[in-house]
């Protein structure tokens, strides 16, 4: 048994302060702004991403801006938006592991998630829910990170099956990560190997409750702890030949 200190990945790492834009209104000389993209601090040279995995001539083809936490001011409107988001969950049809096969009954006539406002989308640009359906190998993790970052916010992650949660039967595999929540933020876990479609639908119901309560803030967590997530990802993905942030 190894201790946590032996691992390079530490669970409790404080989010980098400089990444988060300062609260609007703290500086009286600046015009007060409610929105983070009116704040220009994140455009400074220190905050720019280096894209060092790419060849020199390709680095400026891709964005060098970090993700920004979404801040909202009008709580009533936000509650209404959350209600809308909870009732229109579009799932990214991306299969990782055996869960990808087992999720297919959900869209057939017996369980029929389209009556709940859910459907599969073929591209990350149109999806808001990422279902991690099973074991995640290193090769898949690279594609997961890329797809997750390409999804437009607000976005949520549901980790289905025990393999995505703690490694499952691949606990001693050389090629499978054990905790998906160290690489992308997870909102809801569904245990089981395999969970029944009812269990997955219960997970989606829980996700709806979280969204409507305003607690499914995985996207903001990813933006705030971006350096920590990125360090974990780069530690296991040895051939990092993509931009630091794909969007």
């Amino acid at each position: 048994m190894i201790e946590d200190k032996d691992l390079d990945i530490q669970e409790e790492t404080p989010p980098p302060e400089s990444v988060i834009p300062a609260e609007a209104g703290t500086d009286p000389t600046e015009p007060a702004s409610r929105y983070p993209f009116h704040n220009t601090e994140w455009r400074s040279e220190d905050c720019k991403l280096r894209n060092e995995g790419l060849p020199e001539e390709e680095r400026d083809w891709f964005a060098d801006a970090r993700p920004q936490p979404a801040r909202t001011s009008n709580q009533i409107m936000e509650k209404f938006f959350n209600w809308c988001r909870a009732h229109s969950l579009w799932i990214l049809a991306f299969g990782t592991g055996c869960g990808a096969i087992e999720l297919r009954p959900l869209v057939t006539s017996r369980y029929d998630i389209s009556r709940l406002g859910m459907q599969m989308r073929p591209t990350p640009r149109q999806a808001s829910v990422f279902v991690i359906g099973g074991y995640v190998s290193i090769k898949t993790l690279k594609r997961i990170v890329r797809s997750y970052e390409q999804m437009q916010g607000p976005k949520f992650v549901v980790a289905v099956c025990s393999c995505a949660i703690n490694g499952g039967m691949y606990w001693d595999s050389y090629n499978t990560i054990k905790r998906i929540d160290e690489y992308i933020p997870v909102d809801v876990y569904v245990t089981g190997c395999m969970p029944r479609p009812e269990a997955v639908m219960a997970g989606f119901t829980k996700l709806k409750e979280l969204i409507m309560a305003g607690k499914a803030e995985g996207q903001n967590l990813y933006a705030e702890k971006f350096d920590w997530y990125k360090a974990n990802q780069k530690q296991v993905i040895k051939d990092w030949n993509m931009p630091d942030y794909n969007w």
Partner: protein
Amino acid sequence: MKELYELLKDRFRLSDFSQKQPVQAWLKVPSDQAVALITHLRDIHGFSHLVMLTCVDWIEQGKFQLTYILHNYHDHKDLGVKVYIDRESASMESIHHLWEQARTYQRELYEMFGISFPGSPGLTDPFILEGWDDMPVMRRDFDTKAYSETHYSHRPREIHEPEEHMKQRMYPED
């Protein structure tokens, strides 16, 4: 199949013939004659289909056993050709000129066992493990558990004894 073995025995240094089913037989051939034998089987005796090419690590003998399974479509018979090569600096002649798909098998064997097939196209491209920098993973002296423990973090295990759990739940003040 025995007749075929007797026929081939005049031409190649074959040994260890075994047949457990009427349609399936195995034989062993030295590595320097393996490609010649496989070419002969394909062109003369109608074994025109490469079913698979796989490897077994006999670490105690210091050998890799390459197994070429060939299929004959005319009488639907399978012939397994076993070739033993040295485990140290393992190398074998490529058969991608006989079957194009053999390059994929050889690419896999290069990544999983570290067996070199000189001349095989795209041999060193990453197959499954992208950016792998440790020893080939299917060699039996590779310790997958130790690698997993040093490279990936594990979720700590929580154990709930049923007696304690129910006691906490039903009589929390005790």
